[in-house]
């Protein structure tokens, strides 16, 4: 296999590994730009993945599974909102609680329903999102360079991959070009001013966490019904936190967050391929270092060594109307 083909395959894998990160990072962004810290991405993703796989298994349709995933994550977002927005509870604690709760609950319900040690039964072809082959992809496969890019890199992914990449400009448009987005950002920066303008802060923040729920639900469904073929216990394996890191790395903005997700996805894809490979001049690359790189980079960014990541001003503070 020549180098070019290797690179294409690596980039192809990058698209697949970064898809759940992109959806979850956008989810985190909607929540956090409105002032609600969302550490619960990991748990919500897990809940979404479980619901999608379980429902897709019973109904036999990935679409119904996707809806179930989104319903689950919206419910969890509302729970998070109920604790943090309505009862002004601590947002970090609520997020951690949801993560721990879902880690246990998905396994518990999985065992109760399917008795396969926390797994859901393997899904058949019809109950999963299948790769979409672009028209003419097979025909142009042999065309040098462009043929491979078209047939391998661009074509042949499932619908959720394309949705994730389209969600980025869509999120940007909503965030920066609509009244809803303006209000959402304002509520995260200066809720007092928004309240003075006669817009309900609480309602606005609830709407933001619901948006967050829709997006993270899709990323969960992607894991269990598109990328994988069943739910596995703790299958998110920290992806929610990586998405959170990507969101911070992207400075709470859609396109920079996309870039961070692609970078982190690339590192993930590269890590599995670098296992035991000796690079000329460098020697054997420790896979663990590549795996830890997203976290290390995020810490360096947060320390202010790669530009400045400034969170929304009112992030983490519940809005108190009057005392």
């Amino acid at each position, binding site marked *: 296999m020549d180098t070019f083909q290797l690179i294409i395959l690596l980039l192809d894998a990058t698209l697949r590994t970064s898809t759940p990160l992109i959806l979850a990072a956008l989810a985190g962004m909607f929540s956090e730009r409105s002032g609600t*810290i969302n550490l619960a991405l990991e748990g919500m993703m897990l809940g979404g993945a479980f619901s999608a796989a379980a429902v897709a298994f019973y109904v036999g349709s990935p679409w119904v599974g996707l809806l179930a995933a989104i319903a689950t994550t919206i419910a969890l977002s509302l729970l998070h909102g109920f604790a*943090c927005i309505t*009862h002004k*509870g601590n947002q970090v604690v609520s997020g951690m*609680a949801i993560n*721990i709760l879902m880690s246990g609950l998905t396994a518990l319900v999985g065992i109760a329903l399917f008795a396969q040690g926390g797994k859901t039964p393997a899904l058949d072809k019809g109950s999963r999102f299948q790769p979409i082959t672009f028209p003419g992809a097979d025909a142009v496969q042999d065309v040098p360079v462009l043929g491979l890019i078209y047939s391998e890199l661009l074509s042949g992914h499932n619908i959720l991959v394309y949705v994730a990449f389209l969600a980025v400009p869509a999120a940007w448009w909503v965030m920066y070009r609509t009244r809803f987005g303006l209000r959402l950002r304002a509520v995260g920066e200066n809720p007092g001013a928004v309240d003075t303008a006669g817009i309900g802060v609480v309602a606005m923040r609830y709407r933001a966490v619901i948006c967050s729920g829709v997006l993270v639900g899709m990323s969960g469904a992607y894991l269990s019904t598109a990328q994988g073929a069943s739910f596995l216990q703790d299958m998110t394996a920290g992806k929610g936190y990586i998405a959170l890191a990507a969101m911070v790395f992207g400075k709470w903005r859609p396109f920079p967050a996309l870039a961070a997700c692609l970078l982190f996805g690339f590192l993930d894809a590269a890590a599995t391929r670098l296992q035991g490979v000796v690079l000329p001049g460098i020697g054997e690359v*420790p896979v663990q270092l590549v795996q*830890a790189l997203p976290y290390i980079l995020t810490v360096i960014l*947060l*320390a202010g060594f790669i530009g400045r990541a400034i969170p929304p001003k009112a992030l983490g503070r519940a809005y108190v109307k009057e005392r």
Partner: protein
Amino acid sequence: MSKTVELPRWIDVGALPLLNLLLALVVSGLVVLAIGENPVQVVEILLYGAFGYEEAWGYTLYYTTNFIFTGLAFAVAFHCGLFNIGAEGQAYIGGLGVTLAALYLDFLPFPIMLVVAMLAAMIFGAAWAYIPAYLQARRGSHVVITTIMFNFIASSLMVYLLVNVLRPEGSMTPESEQIAEHLRLPFIHDIAAALGIDMASSPLNLSFVYAIVISVMVWLFIWHTRWGYAIRTVGANAVAATYAGLEPGRFIIIAMMISGALSSFVALNEVMGVQHRLLIDFTAGYGFVGIAVALMGRNHPFGIFLAALLFGMLYQGGAELSFEIPTISNDMVVVIQGLVILFTGAMEHMFRPRVTKIYTAWRLRQDAGEAA
């Protein structure tokens, strides 16, 4: 706002947390019902598994030991207004300190080794907490995010070290060599046997006693020393602390390093006390349980002891549970843990307004009655 009476202490630190805990347990019961099992039976098995026989007590207290350490760790940082989510990573790195000391200084006699291992754990754990602390104090990076990142970095680092450095030659399993027999913490049942008392064997070891001593020391530190006072002042109001001549950044770093050192003591219990070698993921989520323990215990060492005992009971009873009822696994305990954090931590204010209202009404009526 209408007139309200301040809640007395017994409601504030006693009744309200209990009410929240009760709600968490009721919801847990509903979860059990939902998966088609009998909650009463589950509680019976849990209690029997945790306290029903002699060995169970030992296991319960062994888990309790870990939770006391991580609970105290979270509490000290919390008193300074910080969320240390990184106890897991700090304990993990602390384990590296204990293991290195025990493997490379194995010529030392036990009493000296005990001190050395303790110091090694503290230094490693505190150092791992220092970086996020420094970044929070001096560069304003949010400690919640950085400690989460540091948990993952610790995990990758330890896998690397266990696979490539610490693994004995010829071994396939990624774990360190066994530490020498004379350097292990004595089990409580061995101590009891030496005193002529017959006890069932369990992993409970000397570090439980140490945990109690540390709890008292943390209590003294937080409420009866200058540094403790400074930490609480910074936590309550950093701006006021600055006006009072305290430098918040300094105490943020001190509190986090103490927190890291406290987390690292989990390694004493696990590495020196029970496993006798460094295992992958030996921290097994104890650091996260510490959050629940501290929140439930209202960040007071005595409350933390009670909460740690509750979680120790849940962990040990949960093991029995998965044995008795196959449809319920250990994960039930994780669910309960999540619900406890949710209700006693995130939703702690849920009942407060209503309880305050009821109490106010009751007090006003009482006062009116006395006046008449």
